């Protein structure tokens, strides 16, 4: 956790510096003394302060807890990365392609990744789940879902 805490602290300091830098560009408020930059500046400074405390604690060996190191050979880590990729693709294509096809493909793929092998299950469950979600949101609650390629049929 020591290294992680130091890295976390540095990221915190960078975010804090960014807030201060952006805050400096905001217009001052002459009437009320505290303008749009008051809060961001204060928060940026506080974040830098806490980040430094974290780093100092870490350097002095007072970090708490442990982190399991990431190993690419680990099955779980691989699954995590695959999920991240699949999730990103889902998010990017759900609007152009549409909710129904995207969700069916995503669910089938993810169930396969998580160890389901039965073809019948992989063929039926995702379609059923997608249909149920779509019916509840689109038909019962009348909230529109991205239609995508099916726009002319729904």
């Amino acid at each position, binding site marked *: 956790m020591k290294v992680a805490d130091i890295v976390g602290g540095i990221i915190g300091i960078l975010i804090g510096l960014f807030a201060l830098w952006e805050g400096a560009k905001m217009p001052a408020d002459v009437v*009320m003394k505290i303008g749009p930059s008051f*809060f961001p500046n204060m928060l940026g400074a*506080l*974040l830098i302060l806490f980040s430094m405390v974290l780093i100092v*604690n870490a350097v002095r060996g007072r970090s708490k807890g442990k982190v399991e190191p990431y190993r690419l050979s680990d099955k779980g880590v691989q699954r995590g990365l695959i999920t991240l990729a699949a999730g990103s693709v889902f998010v990017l294509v759900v609007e152009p392609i549409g909710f129904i096809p995207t969700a069916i493909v995503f*669910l089938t793929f993810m169930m396969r990744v998580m160890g*389901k092998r039965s073809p019948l299950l992989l063929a039926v469950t995702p379609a059923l789940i997608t249909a149920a979600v779509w019916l509840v949101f689109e038909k019962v609650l009348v909230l529109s879902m991205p239609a995508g390629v099916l726009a002319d049929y729904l």
Partner: protein
Amino acid sequence: MDFNWSLMFASYATVFSPGVLFIICVGITAGIVIGSLPGLTATMGVALLVPLTFGRPPLESLAMLIGIYCGAMYGGSISAILIRTPGTPAAAATILEGYPMARRGEAGRALSMALFASFFGGVCGALIMTFASPIVSGFALEFGPVEYFALAIFGLSVIVSISGRSLVKGMMSAVFGLLISSIGFDPISGFPRFTFGMMEMMEGPPFIPTLIGLFAVSEVFNEVQKTGQLQQLKAKVDRFLPTWEDIKHCFKHLCRSSVIGTFIGSIPGAGGDIAAFVSYGQAKRTSKHPERFGHGQIEGLAASESANNACSGGAMIPLLSLGVPGDAVTAVLLGAFIIQGLQPGPMLYKENIDIVYQIFASMMLAQFAMLFIGMAGIRLFAKVILVDRAILTPTIFVLSMVGAFAMRSNIFDVYTTLAFGILGYVMMRYDYPLSPILLALILGPMAEANLRRAMVISSGDPSILVSRPIAVGLMVLAVVSLLMSIRGQKQVEARLAEMEQAFEKEITD
């Protein structure tokens, strides 16, 4: 205004007709479903169904909307407990204890306590609303910018209590959350901050998608890594109500949180989310075993759930007696009243006192309807956790994205959800608590906007902050609770470290 007992009994008789009871039950059921779906809040549920009430008799329409309101407040806890997805923002505090309980195999116990606490809180809220409206509503109007600022500061003092095992990391999370909450239009000058020129960022990252990303999506990433290592969870659902011991154990917290919830609800602009966190912090501070919080402590769950349901009764108080909505849901209800030709406020008491009492009665009966429908549904809800994780986890992801999108049909919200999901996962992995971010997102804008508003009113003179008794009282409370929780937090950190050492020793031995 004197309390009119005979009118109250007459109103109960009117509401206790099959037609109205049926419509309340329909409302409750719809509310539970809407509340338990991620992204669909009580506000949205009521807003979606208002058009259905056009041209219907007032009592029927309002009874249904009240049913949805109460049902959704409870429904939010179901997904919070079972899949770590806050169905409504008010259920976010319920996750803290409810989800660990479910993971421990106590989903049934958690669900039944959530239901009972919701019922208990709801009844208390309805009682206070029926008997103390005039007193409470006077209090609500006292809240101006200075008081709201003080309330926000008091709320933020809870952050220490939800910081997990490292106070520094908790504070970092909180400050980071406050920074996120400052994204978008400056509340006073309208200057767009940190928007990177994006239209979608002009009001900051959307709240509900952020919430779903941080809690639900991050857990999906966590979950997929563990497949195979975890045995399937078992949900023991052999009861509909919590055991007598559990109720006795939580009774103090139930009572206190219900009162806190009703009062916070009655303050315009402060809703169930704030009430739940404040009560949760209160429960933890006064507990003998604060170190057990965050690992599935039932009184924490009871506190947050009773507070957010009591809040609905509280929020109705200023709406009915002043014509001023107490939270976002009652703001929508105000519109529904007006469409019915009823103008909430003192005039309603003068001209339509019968409908006021009928609303009191509907509110009370809605709680009982919720209890029975909830009891009937508990077995069904708990089934969710029995679903194979390989099917459930991807479905949670899809549902989260759909919920994020449904709110305002904007694909940007889906991107936000994923981004915060990744952020939440990384933060969890390195032990940065997530709830402080959430609390900061709720209270940050309230603190900033009202501080600056107060400064506009006083022309920049800071002494306005100490010029009003309620505000000073709240700030003193904030300092006291901060000191108490920091002291408590030190204890918690020490005990947790002890427990970890003992655990490691056990492993090495």
